[in-house]
Structure formats: structure tokens, C-alpha cells
């Protein structure tokens, strides 16, 4: 689904060597030596090697890897806080590694805002002045930057804290300031370097949710770095898995989980709570039988008996889901001589979208016995999920 989208940033053949004789290290790399062999022979660290990927306009891309995988180096190469050794980073037709110092300054101002792991707020500036920083250095007039900063602070829910100093705020709030500082700048790409890693787990969850909502609202191209796979799976539209400075796999959260590129990824994903990631679409089965709204109680009863169902979903001509009828009530109506099921339809039934996570589904089974209906945006019935299918999905994903 993402291939059709336009690439905002193209990264091609990006490599970074830490050391003084970078050419030698790259030569050895091209001869097929790995990272530790290069370090042994030359004393140089191959931080990143031949990284290739696109960042699509408006997506939330997660770069995920353990410490030492090169993810922080990678994000810093994008805005040249670290100078890449070779390769291209193209944003809106400009090749970042080749920009002059002056052009780089303009590029950073226009394209990149960054949110840092330990917030990196300026302690001598108030919340408002922190949010205004990016605009201030660009020479934006006072009224305009006050307005933009106020907007950004509102977006992250920090109204009323404008005149506080960062050290008067909790960790979660401090990172909101960090986010507001980045948003106020109105750059085209948001870089988030382990932005939530320093927060405690509960606040972290909230912030992830808020980021998803914010991102949805603003459609801002976001690159998010994390070492936490759960976090990556939770917020990412796509995930890039990094190991030893190389890309291991690029894909949607579901692709990473269900078809890991190699053993490394598979081992990685073993500890994950799959139920949050595998979606209803995957566990869904086609509906064995549905009742039409024109059907009478006897027809409906026969359909249920044939497919051995306790209850049946009722749809209209456009396959729009109207409700559920259970066998007992249909039987009563048939005995009473009714010829319509309209008044039997119960509209209290479990119903989810195709992207709902399995953990949600699982909790819904406690309420009712009928299978969960999966519907699209127009309320058309796509299929149903039964309890067994959820358990099966969880089990097979665990073996992968």
C-alpha cells in the first residue's frame, strides 16, 4: 500500500565509518569483511553500511535496532549532526551530504526538527521560549513565533505552562515541550531519537498513543528511532530493522512478525506480545451463512441448522450488517407464525474493523457467544472471527 506513495526522503548507499582512514575500511567492506574483522584490521568502526530506504510522505517510519546497531548514527546522518562517509540522502531534490555549510543550515531549518531521548530542553528558557527556539533563530517576527509556539504547545496539551521552566515539569511533560519545540518549527520531517525511552512505561504508552493521533491529524513525515520492538510495532506504519549497521528487514509491523526475514528477526520478535499486532483481518474467516433482511424466521432457522450456528448475522442487499438474530428467538417467532425477522434483530453485537488487534478481540469473547463481526468503513460484513481462530493465530505466530 505504501509503494504508491511519494518518497519524501531517499537514502541510497549510505555508509559511515568512524575513524581516520575511512577509504580502507570501505574497501575491506567491499571485499566482504564484516564489522568486527574491519575493526580488528584497521581500528575503524563501520557504523553504517550500504543503507538503502525511502521515507514516504506523511508516514511514521520506525527505525529499530539494539544498541550499537547504528540507529542513532543513521538518524544523525540524515541532518548531518554526524557526517556520512559516503552515499546520498535526497530530500526534495537536494542531496544533503553535498550541501555547503550555509545550505545545510537552511536545509536543517526547513526540513528537520528533532526530538531527543533526554529531552535536551534549554534549562535557562521558559517552556514558551523553548518552543520558539527554532523560529527565533530563523528570524521570524515576535508575534508570529509567539502564535506558532502557542499553537504547538496547545497541540501537545501544555496550555497554561508557557511560563514555567523545564525543571518544574515532569518527564512526560518535558518531552511534550520537546515535541512542541519540534512542531512549532513547522519543518517537513520530524526526527525522534528514542524520544520516549526515558519515560516510565505508563506515560510512555500514553505518549505513543498521542503521537499516533497527532501524526494522524497532521500527516507529518516522522522518523522514529527505538530499541523497543513493542514500541515499534505499536506506532510504526513501517519498520526498518537494523543490525550491525545494516538493514535486515523493511516492512509493516505485521510483515515483520508474520514473515521475519531471517532468524535474527524471528528471535527478536519472539518476546513480543503478538496479540497486539496481529490483526482481525488475519484471524478472520468468511461467513458461513448470513440471513437477508427479507428472510422469514423459518428460512433463517434452516440456514442456522444447515451451518450449525446458534445465531446468524443479518445483512441487507449491499452486504451492510444490520444485526444478529439468535436461534431461540427465531424459533419462537416461527411458532408464533410471524413471517418477518425485522423485530428479532438484535443490534447489540460485537463488531470491529479489520485492523483491530487480537488482544482487543480476545477480550470481547467474554461478553457474548456469537462470533465477532468484522466490517469495513461502510459497515459491510467482511467476515467473522471465532474464538478458536484467535487462539490459533496466537499460537502459530508464536512458532514463527
Amino acid at each position, binding site marked *: 500500500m505504501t509503494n504508491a506513495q511519494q518518497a519524501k526522503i531517499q537514502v541510497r548507499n549510505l555508509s559511515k565509518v568512524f575513524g581516520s582512514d575511512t577509504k580502507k575500511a570501505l574497501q575491506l567492506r567491499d571485499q566482504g569483511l564484516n564489522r568486527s574483522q574491519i575493526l580488528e584490521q584497521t581500528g575503524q568502526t563501520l557504523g553504517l553500511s550500504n543503507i538503502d530506504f525511502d521515507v514516504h510522505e506523511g508516514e511514521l517510519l520506525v527505525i529499530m535496532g539494539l544498541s550499537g546497531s547504528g540507529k542513532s548514527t543513521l538518524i544523525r546522518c540524515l541532518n548531518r549532526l554526524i557526517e556520512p562517509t559516503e552515499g546520498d540522502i535526497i530530500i526534495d531534490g537536494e542531496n544533503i551530504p553535498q550541501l555547503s555549510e550555509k545550505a545545510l543550515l537552511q536545509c536543517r531549518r526547513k526540513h528537520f526538527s*528533532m526530538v531527543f531521548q533526554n529531552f*535536551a530542553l534549554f534549562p535557562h528558557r521558559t517552556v514558551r521560549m523553548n518552543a520558539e*527556539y527554532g523560529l527565533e533563530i530563523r528570524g521570524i517576527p515576535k508575534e508570529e513565533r509567539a502564535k506558532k509556539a502557542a499553537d504547538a504547545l496547545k497541540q501537545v496539551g501544555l496550555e497554561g505552562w508557557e511560563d514555567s521552566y523545564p525543571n518544574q515539569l515532569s518527564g512526560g511533560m518535558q518531552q511534550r515541550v520537546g515535541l512542541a519545540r519540534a512542531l512549532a518549527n513547522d519543518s517537513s520531517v520530524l526526527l525522534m531519537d528514542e524520544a520516549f525511552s526515558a519515560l516510565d512505561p505508563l506515560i510512555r504508552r500514553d505518549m505513543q498513543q498521542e503521537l499516533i493521533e497527532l501524526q494522524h491529524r497532521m500527516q507529518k513525515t516522522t522518523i522514529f528511532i527505538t530499541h523497543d520492538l513493542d514500541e515499534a510495532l505499536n506506532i510504526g506504519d513501517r519498520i526498518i530493522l537494523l543490525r550491525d549497521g545494516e538493514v535486515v528487514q523493511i516492512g509493516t509491523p505485521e510483515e515483520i512478525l508474520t514473515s521475519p526475514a531471517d532468524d535474527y528477526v524471528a528471535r527478536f520478535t519472539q518476546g513480543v506480545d503478538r496479540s497486539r499486532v496481529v490483526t482481525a483481518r488475519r484471524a478472520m474467516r468468511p461467513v458461513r451463512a448470513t440471513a437477508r433482511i427479507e428472510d422469514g424466521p423459518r428460512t433463517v432457522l434452516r440456514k442456522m441448522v444447515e451451518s450449525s450456528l446458534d445465531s446468524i448475522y443479518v445483512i441487507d442487499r449491499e452486504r451492510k450488517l444490520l444485526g444478529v438474530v439468535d436461534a431461540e428467538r427465531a424459533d419462537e417467532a416461527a411458532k408464533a407464525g410471524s413471517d418477518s425477522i425485522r423485530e428479532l434483530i438484535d443490534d447489540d453485537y460485537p463488531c470491529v474493523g479489520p485492523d483491530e488487534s487480537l488482544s482487543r478481540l480476545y477480550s470481547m469473547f467474554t461478553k457474548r457467544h456469537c462470533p465477532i463481526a468484522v466490517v469495513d468503513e461502510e459497515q459491510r460484513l467482511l467476515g467473522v472471527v471465532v474464538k478458536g481462530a484467535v487462539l490459533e493465530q496466537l499460537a502459530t505466530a508464536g512458532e514463527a
Partner: protein
Amino acid sequence: MNFEIPRIPLGSWIESGLNFLTTEFSGVTRAISRTTQAGINLLNDGLMWLPEWALLGLIVLLCWRLSGHRLAIGAALGLALIWNLGLWNPMIQTLTLVVIATLVAVVIALPLGILAAVSDRFYRVIMPVLDFMQTMPAFVYLIPAIPFFGIGSVSGIFATVIFAMPPAIRFTTLGIRQVPTELVEAADAFGSTRTQKLVKVQLPLSLPTLMGGINQTIMLSLSMVVIAAMIGANGLGSEVWRAIQRLRPGDGFEAGLAVVIMAMLLDRLTQSFRGRKRAK
């Protein structure tokens, strides 16, 4: 075995070097001398023009505003004692020298300190120079001061600046280098120029450390302007010097006590200033 290693004529080299400098740059040194002397006179006359009680009141008020009632009471008692001992005028002269020497030292030290913070190469060059300046016995600076600026207060200031400047440079460099890398990265990531980064982030964040350096410079200045009495700088130092020459321990002790009182006041005052900045 009998061979002689010739003595290296280090001293005479330095002397001829200094001679060269004094003759070639006499215009420059004379100009410096004149301006400094004018500055000293202006500040000294200004402070002397105020009646003792008025200046005393001002200082006490300043102590009270910046620090609190304890320092204010201490200042009142200490200054009253100095006044009573008849050391008021020498104290003003010493204060003038300290203020001017500190100003000059800070004006030179700030850019050097900043340069040493941003340039590793300059850092490697200046640090041994600072070590040299600080470990060389302070008296030695008095000698070349005389051919440059003649006997008197200007020579005293020259020697004092050399002696008192290193901590201001060191603390400036330290303060800037201590700014967390993440904050410097943040400033860079938003596209700050070097100057913006320095003015908006690095300098404000190194201010507490920088104030610590200035405090050190003031303290060293005070100790040096007293010693500079040996080359004719007037003030409390010359009172001590006179007491030594006349073998009058009582007079010497009185003048010494006045120096101690001044040192404590200056130290507490600059420290309270530093504390205020940090609390904000």
C-alpha cells in the same frame, strides 16, 4: 674528564627580548599606561568623592539586596572598622585597582576562553601557557612591569592582570565544554549558526561556571594588588609595605585585617550573584 657545559644564558636572552619590546613598543605601552592611569584616577576620584558614610551605606544596601541581612551586617561592621582605623582611603585605592584589573582580565579572558572551548588546537596551546602563568611566582611579573609602565599603579595592574586572568579563561572554557552535548546537538539540529549557538545556548548555560571564574579572578587580583605595593601601587598594600620597612607589626596587622575584610566581602558578594543566577 674535564669538560664544561656552558651555562645557557636564558636570563640575558629574556632581558634582551624585554629590552627590545620596551624600546620598540614604547609608544604602545605609554598609550596603555596613560589610559589605564586615567581610568584609575576616574574611578578612584569618583569613589573618594562620595562621603565615607554614603559609600558605606551603598555597599551595605548592595549586600542586603544581593545576599541578605547577615552579609549586610557583616559589611557594616567591617567597613566601619576600616573607617575607624583610618584605612578608608587606602581601601578605596585597593578597590579601584581590583576593579580595573578584574575588568581588564575578564575582557581579555572571555574571548580566549571561548576560543579554547571551540578549538581543540587552541586549547592545547593555551593550557600549558596558563599553567606557566599560574605557577610562576607572582613577584616575577613585577619586574618586567617596571620597564614597560614605570613604577606605580599601572605596573601593578599589568602584573595583576597576568596573574589573575588564568582562572577566568579556564572557567570560561570549562563552562562551555560542560554544556551537555545533547543541548548542543539540539541547537545544531534546528539550524543555529555558530554565533547563535554560542549566545543563545552555550554562554547562558556556562554562566554559573563563568561567574566562579570571575570570583577567582577577583580574589587573585586582591592578593596581587597588595603585593604590587612593592612596585609602587598604592593602597592597603603600601600600608603593609611601610609597616614592614618600619618594623611596626601593629600597623601591618591592621592593614592586613582590612584586606581580609575586603576579601570576604568581595567573595560573598560575587558568590551570591552566582547563586542567584543558578536559582533562576
